[in-house]
């Protein structure tokens, strides 16, 4: 059978050739990172393709379709979380791979081009992370991407053009979603897969670099089955960790992006925390530009051109104290900046938690009423939809309110208190100055009696009493009727 296939295709000998690879000095767990990255990339492609079955890139469907995946697709939340944690895992593995090559001096002659392709792949991975982050179109996706694009806009000379290209216009909107979608699911993956092929081709041309020493190792090991076994052990471990995280810490989906939402504190993906850290630490003015654009730009360039910058011909670690020192210092700086950012973001979010209660995923309230297509006909009006149409423009998409004018509904005792009180306010309106939680508000609340049906009023009150951390009893249509 194998001979039959071999004779007609040459696939068997090709596979044999692919598996037969001398490894100088023998197989090692140090060499697994590249293969594991490749396996994770495959997993990202598979889960990503799955998500495109449901996801629809436009500002009116991006968040809705994402929420649909969470709520009405079997294993939908699991798949989204797998894709999200898989992205993080890929960044980690790519970084480990890069560090291993760096420490082992494997970027030196004759592997300079191999290194350049590899660093490009690293940048592509970051582009995938950045563009994928916007797609759920929740508050965090929107504001974090806004910050990212605005930083890109400060690049000298071409900044405005970059921002205009990313936005596809002047503001973050439906065209941006389409553009990021195209970059995330088509352009970058296509280029990435091509470059991975190139990376592997050059790898086979030069062969594995082997241990960090200048003498040729006396022994050789085999890629198959020794190295591939170690690769699969680590890939399997990574898979189990990602699955565990996807099950026990599912990716949260925040309320839908709302350009009028004040006070929301966005956080970039953790792998951009170090960049965010320099942005925060840098003083205003010209130095901001240095921090956000010049420093990362120079760093990227140095990384890319490292084989020509580091002229030390030796690969032995002991003979490269300067390079090792710079590497260690860079790692410490990046980790330090990231930790600083994590702490700062965490503290700020604790102080101003508006909009941070997820509607799905980790931390979501089970009590949050979700529009179920099956139940909608029988269950009457959808409180969340009534709220979005009539109330969110003043009280905010997440009930955060507007300082001085419209009180927050999240954590508002008038909302969560006696049902009669809140029914009265919604049905009859409220005028004049009021005080909520020690703050004064002057905005006018219209009377909704006659504009909304009793069922809609009941639904929206139930919604605000059970959302954003509020946990009060639902209100029925009969209660609203009885109130008048």
């Amino acid at each position, binding site marked *: 059978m194998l001979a039959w296939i071999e004779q007609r295709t040459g696939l068997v*000998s090709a596979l*044999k*050739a692919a598996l*037969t*690879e*001398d490894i100088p000095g023998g197989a090692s767990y140090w060499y697994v990172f590249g293969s594991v990255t490749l*396996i994770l990339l495959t*997993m990202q492609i*598979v*889960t990503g393709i*799955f998500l495109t*079955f*449901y996801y*629809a890139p436009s500002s009116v*469907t991006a968040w*809705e*379709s994402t*929420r*649909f995946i969470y709520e*009405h*697709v*079997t*294993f*939908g939340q*699991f*798949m989204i979380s797998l894709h999200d944690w898989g992205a993080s895992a890929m960044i980690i593995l790519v970084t480990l791979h890069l560090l291993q090559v760096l420490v082992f001096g494997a970027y030196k002659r004759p592997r300079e081009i191999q290194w350049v392709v590899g660093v490009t792949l690293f940048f592509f991975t970051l582009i995938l992370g950045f563009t994928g982050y916007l797609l759920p179109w929740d508050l965090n996706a929107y504001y974090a991407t806004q910050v990212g694009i605005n930083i890109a806009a400060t690049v000298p000379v071409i900044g405005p053009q970059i921002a205009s290209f990313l936005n596809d216009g002047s503001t973050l909107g439906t065209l941006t979603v389409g553009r990021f979608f195209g970059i995330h699911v088509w352009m970058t993956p296509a280029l990435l897969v091509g470059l991975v092929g190139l990376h592997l081709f050059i790898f086979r041309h030069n*062969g594995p670099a082997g241990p960090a020493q200048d003498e040729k190792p006396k022994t*050789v090991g*085999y890629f*198959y*089955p*020794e190295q*591939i*076994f170690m690769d*699969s*052990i680590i*890939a*399997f471990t990574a*898979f189990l960790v990602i*699955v565990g995280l996807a099950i026990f810490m599912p990716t949260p989906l925040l309320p839908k992006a709302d350009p009028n939402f004040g006070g929301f504190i966005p956080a970039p993906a953790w792998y951009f925390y170090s960049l965010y850290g320099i942005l925060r630490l840098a003083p205003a003015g010209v130095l901001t530009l240095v921090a956000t654009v010049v420093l990362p730009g120079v760093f990227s360039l140095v990384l890319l051109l490292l084989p020509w910058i580091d002229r030390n011909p030796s690969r032995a670690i002991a003979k490269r104290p300067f390079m090792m020192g710079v590497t260690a210092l860079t790692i410490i700086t990046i980790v330090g900046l990231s930790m600083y950012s994590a702490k700062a973001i965490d503290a700020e979010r604790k102080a101003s938690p508006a909009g941070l209660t997820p509607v799905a995923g980790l931390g979501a309230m089970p009590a949050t009423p979700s*529009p*179920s*297509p*099956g*139940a*909608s*006909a029988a269950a009457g009006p959808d409180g969340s*939809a009534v709220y979005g149409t009539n109330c969110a423009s003043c009280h905010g998409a997440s009930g955060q309110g507007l300082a001085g004018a419209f009180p927050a509904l999240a954590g508002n005792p008038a909302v969560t208190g006696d049902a009669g009180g809140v029914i009265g306010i919604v049905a009859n309106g409220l005028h004049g100055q009021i005080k909520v939680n020690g703050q004064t508000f002057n905005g006018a609340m219209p009377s909704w009696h006659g504009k909304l049906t009793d069922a809609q009023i009941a639904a929206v009150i139930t919604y605000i009493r059970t959302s954003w951390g509020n946990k009060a009893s639902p209100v029925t249509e009969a209660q609203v009727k009885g109130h008048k």
Partner: protein
Amino acid sequence: MSEDPTAPQAPKDPEEMGRRRFMAQATVAIGGFVSLGLAIPLVTALVPRPELLNANKGWSPLSPDEFNALKASIDKPVKIHFTKKNVVDGYLVSDNDYYVWGIHMNADEERQFREQRPDLFDPASRGDVSFDVGVLGFVVFSSVCPHLQCKFDWDDGLKAFLCPCHGSQFSKLGVHMKKPDGSYIGPAPRGLDPVPFRTQDGMAEVEWVKYFANVPYRMIVSYS
């Protein structure tokens, strides 16, 4: 490469061979486990949930003007529009416009209807037609052809419903018409499909249903 890649690798002692066989098999086993672990949720996820298939059940009021036209019509079917509110389509909700064909029957036609459409009255062949057909002298037909769900139209010359896609013809009472030689005109597998109809507080209402296409029996597959 230092050796011919297709040549067998250097023979080892039995213990070494066993070790290598274990590593090869473990690699395949791990690969299989990971692939299955991904494939099972992936494939399961692509199966639509029943809650989505059964969404959108409910009555909608017919256009009052067009229903009044039907009351006045004695010889022709009348196209009657209606709007179905809050139709759930995946993650989208919208108000959709539909139309049905109303037939106003006289006493004679009501008798003919019972005779000519046993498929709507015989308990053995009614399928999902679990509602009364021909209520108050009215029959309401779905506007989609039972063949492949094209929209058919009333042809005044033929005095028949004619489907533009494959030429099936149906009488005013929805009977799939035959040529003089006894063969059916067009490929439709059954006569026209009725939809539930009622009057509620003076309003004529229908429940939009879609039946499984191109089979002789009637099975409801969707309400939108």
